């Protein structure tokens, strides 16, 4: 331990008195002792160990040598040496460690003309501490579901809103919806399938989950709230099969249908992975610009391909990577970026615009059920619901103004903008 510490001292910690030490380090170690009481002595590299020990002996210092312990299997030979002798010489390093309370003989050796050339310099041996890892950024106390609302509803501050999304048309392009679910009674104003041979009825569950996050209200028995805009009008476009898969052409057809239905918001918890540096789709960008012109805001999931715990961040996927589509990242209940959430890596489009709760999110499921799910899929309809509240508050707001309002109202987080855009989607009405 001391040897390792000694090496560190030799390599890094021997600094002139004027060396500036970062204040953080001083504060961090202020309560810890700095010196052991022993001395480190720098020896002449040309002097033999025999000469050193002989000269030391004449000043009443009995020095051992590392060579004396070369066959020792004990890692604690240093302690042993410093008990048996007054110090020890590290032959290869040409450094000695001298025990406590032997300052006088050392000063003599460094001062006497016959020995000063071999005993060059002494200094107090320091304690060396493992550097503390960088402190993790303090994250908020985690939100939890309670009797009033799910954690996501609490986090986005929607409980204080006087708006409910009443009358705002929101298209959900997904795997359909459980049309029999009691929580959607009277809320599905339009529906159409774009999947050959499959009805709008959701036999996957994903579309039902996303729709619930927009227009669900409260759990029928537990009575806690889970939907953001419970009076929004749902337009359900089944563009993904019951296996959760579709094609661009089906999704584009669904977007067109949503515009025909005069939807103000299109929520798309879907996409495909892209490679770093890959350009966004010009077709989708053209469609998204047209939608903005027609006062329809398209909100899409950034994607789940990252594994941040392994330092892998995947770029925002298709089609959320289009500049005119609002891309949503996912946050944990501690408002940290989710491990899986894609990041704004690609300079040509591909930014994350905003983030929202996306882990263990409780909502409706197929077969009149409920369950928790995680993904940017869940964060996306939460933002779509917030957009509905904004539009109810100002029905004349353009799609671009709605986007800007989402950005303005977002709660800033101490996270990179490339991960969370403007921050946590947040209601300020």
């Amino acid at each position: 331990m001391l040897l390792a510490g000694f090496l560190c001292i030799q390599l890094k910690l021997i600094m002139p008195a004027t060396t500036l030490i970062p204040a953080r380090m001083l504060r961090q170690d202020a309560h810890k002792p700095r010196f052991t009481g022993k001395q480190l002595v720098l020896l002449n590299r040309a002097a033999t160990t025999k000469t050193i020990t002989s000269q030391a002996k004449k000043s009443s210092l009995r020095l051992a040598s590392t060579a004396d312990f070369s066959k020792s299997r004990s890692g604690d030979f240093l302690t042993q040496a410093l008990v048996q002798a007054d110090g020890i010489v590290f032959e290869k390093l040409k450094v000695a460690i001298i025990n406590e309370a032997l300052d006088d003989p050392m000063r003599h050796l460094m001062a006497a003309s016959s020995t000063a050339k071999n005993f060059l310099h002494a200094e107090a041996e320091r304690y060396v501490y493992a550097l503390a890892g960088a402190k993790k950024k303090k994250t908020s106390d985690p939100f939890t579901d309670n009797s009033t609302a799910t954690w996501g509803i609490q986090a986005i501050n929607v409980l204080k809103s006087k708006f409910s999304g009443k009358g705002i048309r929101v298209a959900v392009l997904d795997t359909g919806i459980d049309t029999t679910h009691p929580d959607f009674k009277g809320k599905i104003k339009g529906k159409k399938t774009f999947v050959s041979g499959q009805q709008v009825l959701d036999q996957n569950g994903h579309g039902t989950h996303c729709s619930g996050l927009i227009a669900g209200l409260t759990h029928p028995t537990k009575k806690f709230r889970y939907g953001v805009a419970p009076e929004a009008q749902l337009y359900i476009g089944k563009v993904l099969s019951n296996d959760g898969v579709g094609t661009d052409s089906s999704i584009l057809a669904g977007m067109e249908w949503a515009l025909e239905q005069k939807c103000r918001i299109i929520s798309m918890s879907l996409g495909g992975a892209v490679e770093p540096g890959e350009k966004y789709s010009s077709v989708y960008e053209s469609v998204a610009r047209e939608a903005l012109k027609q006062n329809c805001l398209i909100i899409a999931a950034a994607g789940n391909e990252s594994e941040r715990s392994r330092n892998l961040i995947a770029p925002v996927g298709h089609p959320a990577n289009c500049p005119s589509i609002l891309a949503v990242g996912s946050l944990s209940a501690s408002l940290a970026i989710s491990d899986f959430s894609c990041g704004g890596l690609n300079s040509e489009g591909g930014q994350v615009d905003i983030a929202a709760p996306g882990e263990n999110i409780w909502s409706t499921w197929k077969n009149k059920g409920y369950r928790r799910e995680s993904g940017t899929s869940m964060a996306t309809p939460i933002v779509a619901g917030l957009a509905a509240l904004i539009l109810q508050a100002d029905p004349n707001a353009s799609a671009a103004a709605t986007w800007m309002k989402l950005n303005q109202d977002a709660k800033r987080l101490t996270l990179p903008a490339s991960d969370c855009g403007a921050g946590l989607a947040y209601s300020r009405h």
Partner: protein
Amino acid sequence: MKFIAVVAQKDDTDKLVKQLEALGCTIEKVLRITGVITGDAGPRKLEELNLPGILTVEPDRRISIRKKKP
């Protein structure tokens, strides 16, 4: 190969649909609000569909839900 395309001017959509069909494409959807044409290029390469008046042509990609995989 299946494709998606978008026209530069929506007024030209019908004309471009005919030109694509003349190239041997099977047109599946014509989305007039957004100016999108989708279909099957048949034996043609996508670059060959990039006619004057077509803004861009791309392959029809596979898309899936964005739920985190367990």
